[in-house]
């Protein structure tokens, strides 16, 4: 399951709801990403998205992870719009029989989100705003999964 949210997200509540929904699993792994303030230089991130393509891409990433790691359930919630520094921007979770599949599924979904999800970030730095693109490291992280796909 996956969704895009233009409202603030509460990772603790999301994890709690996910945990209740996947009774019977032996392991749950989750990840929460926060907006980095870059030592105080960034006050806010604004995320642009496509009303159809962004949600479809995120749903596909979730489904790919569920199949690839044979996990019982996965969950992705991604913020769009204005997100203040320090606030959660993404929540990802996976539930499985054993821990390794859950860890791997979460790691995989985050790497895919960084390079494959049509989301565009604009940092507010002081009085200016800067659009940012995926880092080299993001593509290297994504490539780790290609050898065994």
């Amino acid at each position, binding site marked *: 399951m996956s969704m895009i949210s233009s409202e603030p997200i509460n990772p603790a509540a999301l994890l709690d709801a996910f945990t209740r929904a996947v009774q019977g699993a032996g392991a749950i792994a989750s990840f929460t990403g926060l907006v980095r303030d870059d030592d105080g230089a960034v006050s806010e991130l604004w995320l*642009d998205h496509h009303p159809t393509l962004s949600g*479809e891409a995120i749903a596909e990433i979730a489904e790919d992870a569920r199949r690839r790691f044979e996990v019982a359930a996965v969950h992705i919630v991604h913020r769009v719009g204005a997100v203040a520094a320090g606030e959660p921007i993404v929540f990802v979770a996976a539930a499985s029989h054993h821990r390794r599949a859950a860890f791997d599924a979460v790691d995989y979904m985050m790497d895919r*989100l960084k390079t494959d999800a049509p989301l*565009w*970030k604009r940092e507010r730095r002081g009085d200016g705003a800067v*659009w940012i*693109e995926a880092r080299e490291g993001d593509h290297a992280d994504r490539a780790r999964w290609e050898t065994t796909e």
Partner: protein
Amino acid sequence: MRPTFFGRLRDAVGAGAIDRAVPANIADSEALRAWLGADFPDVLDAKVRIALDDVLTTRPAPIAGVAEAAFLPPVSGG
């Protein structure tokens, strides 16, 4: 035909969408890119992908009957 713009293109164009009467001789997505590029050169960047009615194109695709042409710059990462 409604060209739409995302990410840095939104700021470069100054709007998320514009309404344009596309000339009849503009037949495919790449011709549309070149035509809009006269006013908005940022769309000429080959890294900018085009989606026609929510379907990503990888080569010139016919635009007859298409309602929305989305111009998508490289993603930022989630």
